[in-house]
């Protein structure tokens, strides 16, 4: 049965993951973020709920956390919260140009020309930084100035290509 506690516990565990994420990012700024994010937002909540389940079952009194279904409902909500956050995260990490354009236009009531908007960016930001981040994540490799996709990168590119073809759409153009 869905009670307010399901929602509260899901939000609490998501907040714990988020707090750990913020702290680790502020202290260490890990290079390979995808694995750590998955661990923090998917593996850690599952472990927390698993541990709570066994701890709560030891008590003499019937607790909310002693019910597997309660925790499963909470875990589902936690995972969709995590999914929503993680899909928004790249915009914060890579400083989305679209959002920067919107912010810049919000402070100029008269608007800006295309050239003025282009002046907000550099080729380094728009291209080279992304390439460097892909290399950090192990998705591309640079051998002697020549860039190639790593096996992981090839799998990622193939996954999105198949998804787009399933929808009947051409590949995205960035």
């Amino acid at each position, binding site marked *: 049965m869905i009670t307010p506690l399901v929602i509260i516990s899901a939000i609490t565990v998501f907040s714990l993951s988020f707090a750990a994420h913020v702290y680790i990012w*502020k202290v260490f700024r890990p290079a390979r973020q995808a694995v750590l994010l998955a661990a923090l937002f998917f593996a850690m909540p599952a472990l927390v709920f698993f541990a709570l389940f066994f701890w709560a079952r030891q008590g003499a009194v019937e607790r909310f956390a002693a019910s597997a279904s309660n925790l499963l*409902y909470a875990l589902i909500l936690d995972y969709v919260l995590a999914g929503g956050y993680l899909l928004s995260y790249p915009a914060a990490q890579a400083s989305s140009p679209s959002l920067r354009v919107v*912010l810049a236009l919000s402070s100029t009531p008269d608007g800006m020309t295309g050239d003025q908007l282009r002046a907000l960016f550099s080729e380094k930001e728009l291209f080279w930084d992304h390439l460097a981040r*892909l290399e950090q994540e192990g998705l591309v490799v640079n051998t002697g100035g020549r860039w190639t996709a790593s096996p992981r990168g090839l799998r990622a590119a193939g996954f999105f290509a198949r998804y787009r073809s399933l929808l009947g759409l051409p590949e995205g153009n960035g």
Partner: protein
Amino acid sequence: MLPSQLYFIAGLTAACCAPFVAHLILTRVFKRYAAEDERQSGCLAGCAFGVPAAVAVFFAGRSLFPGGDPFSLAVYITLVYGLAAYTYFHFFNISETSRRIRLLTLLSRGGMDGRELAARYDPWGALGRRLGRLSGLGELKEREGRFSLARRRLLVCARAVFILRSVLFPLERTDWKPLAVLVLAAAGAGVCNSGIFPFPASVVFLLSVVICAVSLVLLDRRDGASNFLLAAAPVVIVFSCFLFSPYLPSGDIDFHVPMFSYMAEHFSAGRVCPWIASAGGIRTGFVHISDFLTVPHRLTGYFLYTMTGMGAEFAYRLQFILGVLFIGFGWWLVLKKLTGSRYAAFFGALMVMLGGNGMTFHQEQALATQYLAPWFVLSLMKVRDDRSFILPAAAIAGLGLSTHQPQLQMIAMVLTGVVFAAVSPATVRAAWRVRWFGAAAVCLIVLAALPSAYLLHHLPSLVSPMREMDDLLACTTLQQYDVLTGQQIASAPRRYLEQYFMPRFGAESGADCCAFFVGRPALVMAAAGVALNFRAALVPVFLAACFMVLTLGLNSPGMVPRALFLAGVPYINVFRQWYHFFPLLNFCLSAAAAIGVAAAAARISRAAGGRRTVAAGCLALAMLLNFVDLAHYALSYTSVFAANNRYVPPAVNGPLLLAGPDGPTELFIYRSRGRAPVPDELWPVALISLVDRAVVPGDGGMLPLGVEGAAGITRSFDAAVTAEGLSCSVEIPGPRLLVTPLNYDLRLKAFVDGSPVPVHRVNGFLAGVELEKQGRHAVKFALAEDGYNFILTVQYLMYVFVAVFLLAKYLEGRHADGV
């Protein structure tokens, strides 16, 4: 797992997949959604087409869980479906617009050098395509070659994302050492108190002093929130002695722990218990103020109890400690803002957490008296920079009026507000210049203070077995007031103030007396604050003097209680614990001492050479000495209540329904029950009495319910006291009146075999129903909704509002710093 639960999860999963399926169909069937400018619109349409699937899951959930809460189910499904749709939209958007996916796709066709890749990727062309997409979505408009915002929907997202960016990727990295010190301190505290090694209290004491010294050294120059972790670290070690102690102060054993345990068990079952089943039952809302059921640390305690296997008593201790840390954090923020010195904030926060405010564990009620104070002061201080802080200040003021000892909170907040206004009148004028702030502030105060309105509404039907409340409420003349207050008011004797200088423990120095302590070196620093920065110290010293006089109550020069009574302060005639102003006095002393530390630190930083080293060493030593004094005091105090027996949880249900006032019901019982002219022998002795119609007397007559062997009366204990009320199953030979010990004034609904029946008042205060037909009947009594759940929801929302407001402002400030 039950099949119904599996069906629900399967349905929910299917609904979450609906946006993808609908999007797939839309892009395949309607070619317009495959066009570049319409692709995102197609995805959004797919998400919208999935909504009926979510609605279907809601109705399926209603039939699968018939007794469930429909509101929670609706919120849950809305959240899950909404977030799943949001996630899918972003997933699609990434496949469409991600620069990194585009680069990977290009490189998956074969390797190339950077220049060739840049030429193929065309970063400037990608920027142009983004402008086109934003225009296509209607976010931008282009006129005469100039782009401008067409609507501000995306602007909110942009601000949120850039705030997140400033939090995750600050200009300077955070130091990991404060958290490490706190974790080490917690681990050390656990080991010292685990029982595996027989560590004496002196080891805990020495460890806490070492951690305090390390914390002092590690205080971060950038003055981030991690400095509070350093202040909390030594406190955690000292607190562990209380956390793992088998003893509790007497007020906690017999009053607060049973109530906490009772509420936590109901919280664990996912409900707010509407009543306390003793003395015939009273509504939970009547003890909302006096038992502070919704203060944040209590809610945290209920939650920890619910989610883990820890015992109620351990959860109670833990929530107390969390409450002290919560107050300490608020006060640390105040001192940081007041002094701008990390040393001063560290010093003052320790005074509050380990001094009389925190470590005396003064029957928890003192914690409820002070938990709002730091946040109220912080909001007032911020109003000077940002007028919108008048809103959290108003919400906190309203919460204060509906928490423990609202008269005390009202006096303290008005006094503090007046002093702030006197010090900075321009701020007040500026705050009220925006007119809607005033209206919004009044609304927030009223909404947050609803529990007080609820209690005042019901007050005429209540009496208090603890005190002559009726007489106090009725007293109108000073003479009456003096006579009554002389008997019932608790004020601090002047010797309590000696505790600041010469602490004593023992029978004559109870929790109230021991609360008057902040460390003796701190008093020297407070004096230094006055000497070195008189202007800054004037406000805390003035307020300290006011709170000291209020603390003394009837013993104060000029009899402050009488003056306030004559001034017509609402409900001051029923206020009795004047010494509970002590936390506010301690806060003021802490502020004065922090100003002293800040002034000393500023002078030291201006000094040069050897003098500077010696002076800095002296200041650090004074800070450490104060911690030593505080820790020693706290550990000595903890050993004082070790003389009490271990807590044994009493039952608050069942037989207590038959008993007189006890525990939480000492505060309020129904007037009809407390004052009914019923001889003791006529009180009911069973949960169910079945009375033959023949012995029911006329109007005003009494049934001899309590008389053993009374003719025509059958008694039974075969009934269950439930969270909702009482239920039983009875077999009757003919028409009978079923009488229960439940108070009629509880406003009960009764059901016989599922059908509603009227409830009768029996013997002036009991509740009964008539059973007409011979045979077996299922009878159920349940409390009718009286608006308390709505009030509780509003209170929770007020806490959320204050927390979200303060957090949002903090993040906004960080973002501004980052920019």
